[in-house]
C-alpha cells in the first residue's frame, strides 16, 4: 500500500525567548488503510506530533507529505482545503455544540463552510449516525446524551467529508471500558468498510494492542515502532 502521510525530519520548538524543543527529527510514514496507535508518556510530544500531522500546527523544520503533496509549498488556503478534504479529527473532548441535535452536529462542517445541505448530504449524515448506532437518539440535543454517545456523534461528524485519514487524540480518554470497546469496534469497522487510515493517540492498552502498529514516542523521539506480522 502507498503512504498517505509522511513526516520527514520533523522538529518542533515552542517559544521564542524561552525555547523548548519538543520534537527531534521525527521520520514516520503511514500506509493507506492502516490502523496505527501512538503511545507515550504524558508530555512526550504526541499531541504536538498529531497537530503537525493534521497541519493544525506548523513544524519548526521538516516536511509533511499528505496524499503525495508536500505541504510546505502550499498557501494557507490550499493547505486548509487539503486538510478539509483529506483529514478528519476526533478529540478526547468532542467539542459538540450542546444546544444542537446529534444530526445538526454531524452536519456542522457543512453549515460552517456554508455548503448547501442537499438531500444526499442529509442522507449521508443519517447513514453515518446509523453506523455509529445512534439512529434512535439522533434528534436529541447533544447536551442530553451520554459521554459515549457524544463521542460517537463526534466520530460521525469526523466522517462527514469522507476523509482518507482520521487523526484521533485520545478518543476514548474519558470513557468507561465498555464504551471504549464500542468506540474501538466502531473505528475498526470504518477502517474496514471505507479503507480509512487511522492514527490514534491512546493511553489505553486495549486499543493499542489491537492496532496494526504501535509507535511509542519518548522525549520527542521515536522510541519503538512495531507492526503486527499479519497486519
Amino acid at each position, binding site marked *: 500500500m502507498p503512504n498517505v502521510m509522511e513526516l520527514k525530519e520533523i522538529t518542533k520548538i515552542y517559544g521564542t525567548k524561552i525555547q523548548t524543543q519538543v520534537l527531534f527529527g521525527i521520520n514516520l510514514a503511514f500506509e493507506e488503510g492502516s490502523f496505527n496507535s501512538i*503511545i507515550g508518556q504524558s508530555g512526550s510530544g504526541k499531541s504536538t506530533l498529531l497537530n503537525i500531522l493534521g497541519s493544525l500546527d506548523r513544524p519548526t523544520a521538516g516536511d509533511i507529505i499528505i496524499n503525495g503533496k508536500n505541504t510546505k509549498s502550499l498557501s494557507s488556503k490550499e493547505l486548509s482545503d487539503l486538510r478539509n478534504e483529506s483529514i478528519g479529527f476526533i478529540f478526547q473532548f468532542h467539542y459538540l455544540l450542546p444546544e444542537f441535535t446529534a444530526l445538526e452536529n454531524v452536519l456542522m462542517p457543512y453549515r460552517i463552510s456554508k455548503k448547501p445541505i442537499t438531500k444526499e448530504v442529509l442522507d449521508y449524515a443519517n447513514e453515518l449516525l446509523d453506523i455509529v448506532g445512534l439512529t434512535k437518539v439522533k434528534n436529541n440535543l447533544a447536551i442530553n446524551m451520554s459521554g459515549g454517545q457524544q463521542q460517537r456523534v463526534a466520530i460521525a461528524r469526523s466522517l462527514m467529508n469522507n476523509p482518507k485519514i482520521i487523526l484521533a487524540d485520545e478518543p476514548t480518554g474519558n470513557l468507561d471500558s465498555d464504551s471504549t470497546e464500542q468506540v474501538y469496534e466502531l473505528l475498526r469497522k470504518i477502517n474496514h468498510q471505507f479503507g480509512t487510515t487511522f492514527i490514534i493517540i491512546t493511553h489505553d*492498552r486495549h486499543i*493499542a*494492542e489491537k492496532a496494526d502498529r*504501535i509507535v*511509542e514516542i519518548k522525549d520527542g523521539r521515536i*522510541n*519503538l*515502532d*512495531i*507492526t*503486527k*506480522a499479519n497486519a
Partner: protein
Amino acid sequence: MNSNYEGFIKLLDLEDKDKSVNYALELLKSKKVTLEELYLDFLAPALTTFVCQEKEKEICIWKEHTRTSIIRTILECTYPFVIERRNEIKKLHKKVVILTPSEEYHEIGAIIVNHFFMLAGFESQYIGANTPKNDILMAVKAYQPDFVAISVTNYYNIVITKQITDGIKKNYPNVKIIVGGQAFLQHGAIDQISHDYYMQKASDVFMIAKEVK
C-alpha cells in the same frame, strides 16, 4: 510427528484431565519419549495449534483455559523427571532468572524454557508471569544472575520489555539478556530491544550452554 501424539490429542479433545496426565507421564516413565520431546512435540503444539470449532465459538475461551490447565498440570508433574536428569549432568554454575513482563499472562512457554535451562545444566529460577519492571530489577540485584531470560507473547508487551531490557543493561551491564516468545515474530520488534541472545526454540538454550562451558 510422534505416533503417540494423536492418542494424546484425542484425550485432550475429550477434556479428560486424569487420562491425559497419566498418558503423558506414562510416555516418560516407559521412556517412549524424552522430556524434550514431551515439551516440544506434545505439550507446546497441543496449545499453539489449538483451534476452536465454529459451532463452539461462545465457549472457546473456556475450552482454551481447560486445555491450558491440563497442559500446565502435566508440565508441573514432569518436575521429578527434570530433577532426575539434572542429577546426571555436569553443572555449569551459571544462574538464570526467567520471567514474563507485567501484563503478560502467557507463561507455559516460559515454564518450558525454565525446564530446558535446568536440563542444560543451568541453575535456573522461574520468577513468574506478569512481573512488574521494578520487581525484575530487584530480583536481578538480589540473585545476581548471569542471564535474564524474558518470554513475551503479546505484541503490546514489547513496549514494557524494552523498558526492562534497557533498565537491566543500564544498571547491570554484565547480565546477559535472552529474549524469546511469539511477540518477536512482529516486524521490527527484535531490532529495537537490547538483548544478547534471541532464540525462537526452547532447545536453543543448549547452544548457550555450549558457549559457556
